[in-house]
């Protein structure tokens, strides 16, 4: 469907060539509508992401990688992925772009899809709404319209259920980022709320028939007893960690609010001073006007605080709250089940 062209030069040009090809095949992407309604992932990609974090990720470091696949109508199919080395001490002689180009060229030899469709990142307790993520996703989405970022939460997965979410930037946020204008007026004009920054795309997992056969084989051969972490009642540790992060963010938010309040107070004070100045001038008509420097010093407006950061913080707080609510809902269900069982015993 999409003609495969071998990318030469930097990643940007190769991505734009694939974007052009994908756009031709897909038709109009629609500026108001989101281009991708569903993300379809191969089982292979899920396992590769899990493995990458398991082997290379520790603590709060994030692991990243690139997703490869195709766009079919309004579905984004991800068929393969490869990991990205982490930024270590030998940063100087490591060329990211070259690594990507080599990888894609080699994968093409073995007939694996080599079209960039997005990237993935692991996260620590759900804290991924950062400026860096925004910038990366913007550059991806700018080059390839349908790209998504997959967020994999290993700690939540270890608790019993795979936690994999796909996010895209909303069209409004794309506009703002394109202008590179993060001042308060621009943001207010665009009318972006923290809830409308990222949109989540539903994920489905699809496997080929051969993989299904392999699954049956594995189920027969592997004698691993089912460990039921999902039903464990011990939850306080995880909850405590989540709340700790939430509290940190709320602290940052309150600092931000204090800054904003001082700004508002300064502007209103200045308005008053201007008013007084006007009155004085009206009274003293005919007298020599005030020297220029005083005016400019007096009337220098205070800097409005940056709005983008507080938007990001609000978005992050929102994500934390969502996670916590999901978690508590699950745990309440388990506790009620335990209660029912105990009552039955007595």
């Amino acid at each position: 469907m999409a003609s495969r062209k071998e990318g030469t030069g930097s990643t940007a040009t190769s991505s734009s060539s694939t974007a052009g090809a994908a756009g031709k095949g897909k038709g109009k992407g629609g500026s108001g509508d989101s281009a991708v309604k569903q993300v379809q992932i191969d089982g292979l990609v899920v396992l590769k992401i899990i493995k990458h974090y398991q082997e290379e990720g520790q603590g709060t470091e994030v692991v990243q990688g690139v997703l490869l696949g195709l766009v079919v109508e309004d579905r984004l199919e991800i068929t393969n992925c490869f990991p990205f080395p982490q930024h270590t001490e030998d940063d100087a002689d490591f060329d990211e772009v070259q690594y990507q180009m080599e990888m894609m060229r080699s994968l093409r030899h073995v007939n694996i899809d080599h079209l960039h469709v997005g990237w993935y990142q692991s996260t620590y307790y759900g804290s991924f709404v950062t400026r860096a993520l925004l910038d990366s996703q913007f550059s991806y989405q700018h080059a390839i319209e349908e790209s998504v970022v997959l967020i994999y939460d290993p700690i939540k997965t270890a608790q019993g259920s795979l936690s994999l979410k796909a996010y895209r930037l909303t069209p409004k946020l794309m506009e703002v980022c394109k202008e590179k204008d993060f001042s308060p007026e621009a943001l207010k004009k665009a009318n972006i709320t923290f809830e409308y920054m990222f949109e989540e795309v539903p994920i489905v997992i699809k496997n080929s028939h051969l993989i299904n056969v392999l699954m049956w084989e594995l189920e027969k051969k592997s004698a691993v007893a089912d460990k039921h972490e999902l039903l464990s009642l011990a939850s306080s540790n995880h909850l405590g960690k989540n709340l700790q992060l939430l509290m940190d963010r709320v602290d940052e938010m309150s600092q931000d609010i204090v800054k904003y309040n001082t700004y508002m107070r300064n502007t209103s004070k200045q308005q008053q001073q201007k008013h007084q100045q006007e009155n004085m001038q009206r009274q003293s008509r005919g007298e020599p006007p005030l020297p220029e420097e005083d005016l400019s010093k007096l009337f220098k407006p205070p800097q409005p605080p940056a709005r983008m950061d507080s938007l990001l913080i609000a978005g992050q707080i929102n994500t934390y709250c969502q996670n916590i609510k999901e978690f508590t809902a699950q745990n309440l269900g388990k506790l009620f089940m335990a209660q029912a069982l105990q009552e039955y015993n007595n």
Partner: protein
Amino acid sequence: MATPAVPVAVDMEFAKNMYELHKKVSPNELILGWYATGHDITEHSVLIHEYYSREAPNPIHLTVDTSLQNGRMSIKAYVSTLMGVPGRTMGVMFTPLTVKYAYYDTERIGVDLIMKTCFSPNRVIGLSSDLQQVGGASARIQDALSTVLQYAEDVLSGKVSADNTVGRFLMSLVNQVPKIVPDDFETMLNSNINDLLMVTYLANLTQSQIALNEKLVNL
């Protein structure tokens, strides 16, 4: 070693390139061997295996039968051993190894999820919400419990002969259920529920706070 009828080529440059790239991500991993799809070992395998014995000491050869002979996808592993009369021409024999599958936690959870596509008509599954997952896990335990109950009833009614080890397992299982005084359990349960409710309330409060902040700032 008979000369192969059809020559086979392995792109060594490609292999070396991929290994270099991979080492950038995981510098500690080494080449252990090679895999091939197919049912049997052919003469080509011997040549390729010889190449890999230069890359790794005692390489492993893995075959995955994707042609599904015998209706199964058999996965076998081999190591090469020398055979023959010492001093004369030596041959190479592939000795089979036992294959075991090991998982770590998150991998097993991922595999469990992916396995669900076996049961859906168009091999597609979505990721379910949290409560649904709890429901699914409890359903699994329920199945396991009913199997055990069925077995116990069969033994009691004489349909199945009693097995001592299984019986002892069952007894230790039943004894593992903790006996808690109902009042203590009530207090534990209530305090946990209170914690969770309070946290939910706080989360909702925080969300409404930031929404309010958003509205105020944009005035």
